[in-house]
């Protein structure tokens, strides 16, 4: 039935050419508009701080996904390229005469080139093989450069790091970047440019071959491409955008320390990227947004935010390897069939009760933590806007009951959800 549409070889070609020009532009225009108006919706200073952090993380996560998702290279030390780019930019800020001649918005180019330069050196030997060898080398280099930060004090500034002042740069059309909001628009502009460039990169011959080498390096070699060179170029490009992210960090915070390039930071960007989903271009964007929210908002609510993040990460790896983006894209077939509505009620029942169960479990964890670690005699804690005594039995019974009932209902309603899922993904009448 659909064969007739596609057997004419010229037709799909036209469809594709038209598609590559018009349709993909819409999300970019929307994103630009959103970035423009966001500071008018969230006007608080703290909100702008979070959005800046988010935008920087998005660039970094997208750069990281050029390796992990598109090139199939698992790096445990990618913070190094962002960090070194950032350090270089702080040094440029401190070179008074030179910095006075370049406008601040151009500074990320230098950060990018620095990250790219380092990636060229490291990539020349680390991209020979993919898989475990690459991962191990990335870890080793990451540790090595993090260790350098206390040895090469002139560049890394030792334990206290180095700081600069972004406002000494040449004014950019009168803007001196004294205010947070001006920095926001600088970062937002770089976010848009970097994301667009990284997206376009994935559509070039080299970007396509990066996918091919990821899927089947041997076959790619028998098609005339050296898998090693393809990996190397991806690595260098990723290093550039990581450096850009580092430079934006330097502009935003005006200080860089060892924490910006150590393996913890490398681990966090892997986590954020994977959480968002490595299989789709927009995955790391989602991941960076959610991750930054958890890091900034949830961390204000609880000391245990890292613990919850860890659980979410493990659950993602085990049950949703496609990440958030994968979860969203799973619904596309049902949407095409116009049957997404079938899932509404079952989702509400199962996921709603599951969420209640999670909240209950979180309360138990928090109460245990409080009971064990609060200072002696401090028996009072507040959770979910309720204050109670952790040493009385009633709150424990309530929390346990809520947890069990929540998960119990979720479990009971799961088969109905599975059935609804099956229905939503089956075309009417057709058994194919």
């Amino acid at each position, binding site marked *: 039935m659909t*064969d007739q549409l*596609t*057997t004419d*070889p*010229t037709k*799909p*070609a036209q469809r*594709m*050419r038209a*598609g*590559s020009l018009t349709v993909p532009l819409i999300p970019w225009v929307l994103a630009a508009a959103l970035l423009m108006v966001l500071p008018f919706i969230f006007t608080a200073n703290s909100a702008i701080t979070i959005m800046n952090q988010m935008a920087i993380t998005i660039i970094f996560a997208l750069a990281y996904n050029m390796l992990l998702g598109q090139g199939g290279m698992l790096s445990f030390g990618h913070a190094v390229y962002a960090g070194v780019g950032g350090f270089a930019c702080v040094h440029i800020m401190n070179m008074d005469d030179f910095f006075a001649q370049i406008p601040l918005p151009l500074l990320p180019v230098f950060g990018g080139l620095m990250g790219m330069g380092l990636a060229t050196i490291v990539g020349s030997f680390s991209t020979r093989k993919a898989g475990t060898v690459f991962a191990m080398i990335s870890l080793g280099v990451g540790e090595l450069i993090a260790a350098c930060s206390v040895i090469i004090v002139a560049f890394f500034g030792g334990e206290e790091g180095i700081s600069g002042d972004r406002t000494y740069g040449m004014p950019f059309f009168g803007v001196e970047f004294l205010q947070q909001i001006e920095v926001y628009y600088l970062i937002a502009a770089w976010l848009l440019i970097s994301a667009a460039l990284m997206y*376009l*990169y994935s*559509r*070039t*011959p*080299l*970007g*396509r*071959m990066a*996918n*091919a080498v990821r*899927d*089947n390096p*041997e*076959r*790619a*070699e*028998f*098609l*005339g*491409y*050296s*898998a090693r*060179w*393809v990996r190397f*170029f991806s690595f260098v*490009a990723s290093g550039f955008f990581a450096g850009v992210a580092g430079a934006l960090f330097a502009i935003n915070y005006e200080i860089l320390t060892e924490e910006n390039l150590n393996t913890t930071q490398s681990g966090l960007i892997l986590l954020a990227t994977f959480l968002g989903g490595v299989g789709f271009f927009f995955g790391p964007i989602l991941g960076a947004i959610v991750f930054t929210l958890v890091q900034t908002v949830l961390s204000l609510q609880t000391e245990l935010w890292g613990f919850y993040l860890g659980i979410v990460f493990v659950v993602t790896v085990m049950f949703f390897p496609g990440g958030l983006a994968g979860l969203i894209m799973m619904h596309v077939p049902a949407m095409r069939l116009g049957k997404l509505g079938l899932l509404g009620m079952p989702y509400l029942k199962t996921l709603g009760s599951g969420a209640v169960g999670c909240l209950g479990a979180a309360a138990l964890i928090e109460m245990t933590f409080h009971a064990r670690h609060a200072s002696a005699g401090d028996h009072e804690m507040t959770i979910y806007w309720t204050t109670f005594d952790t040493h009385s039995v009633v709150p424990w019974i309530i929390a346990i009951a809520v947890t069990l009932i929540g998960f119990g209902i979720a479990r009971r309603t799961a088969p109905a959800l599975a059935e609804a899922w099956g229905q939503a993904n089956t075309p009417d009448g057709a058994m194919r």
Partner: protein
Amino acid sequence: MTAALQLDGLKKSFGKTEIIRGVDLSIGKGERHAIIGPNGAGKSTLFNLITGRFPQSEGHIRLHGEDLAGKAPFEINRMGLSRSFQITNIFPKMTVFENVRCSLLWSMGYRYNFWSMVGRSRALTEGTDEILDQINLTARRDLPAGVLSYAEQRALEIGITIAGGADVIMLDEPTAGMSHSETDYIVELIRTVTEGKTLVMVEHDMGVVFGLADQISVLVYGEIIATGTPEAVRANPKVQEAYLGEALEAH
């Protein structure tokens, strides 16, 4: 005239075991050459040596007169030699269209280009669709290659192998595991797409070999015991003794 492919005293050992024990072979331009032999004779190893997957232990391999020693698979491919694999080797997660397009990129001069969009090139899209048309997979164009039927995947692999415009095509058991009708289809496909090219293939199905090849070499225990036209090989007593007897009677 230099041979398309020339092997001189080729040897390969894995540890102490000698798998290829001195092969001399000359395959002329435009020839359809089949390499046959019992299981474990070293046919696939011979293929892997020629295409640069393994380094040889001794001897020379020349493609159009040029020595291939020390060359990586991608370098050999750029010199005009392309191969398929005994076990289907494609990009299963990419669409059929992308599989073929990737195999066209190098030969169309894109190399490691990162400044032009693949979707914008009319020549690339049309070239890809032309190959898809040749291998009759136009209707499967936008499906992930991994969901195709076995025979379709084999056809796709042949498409990938010929797409880059190589003039020496090496096919490792192209009809392995296929039904009769599928085999007939693939043989016809190979005949058309390798028109005017040098074809080297390993094959077990004697029907395919005698139908397609104009030269046959028989490889037994790492040595070629006979080379010649199908008739000559069929009549060769050494071949009959070593291997062909039963297979020939059955045919």
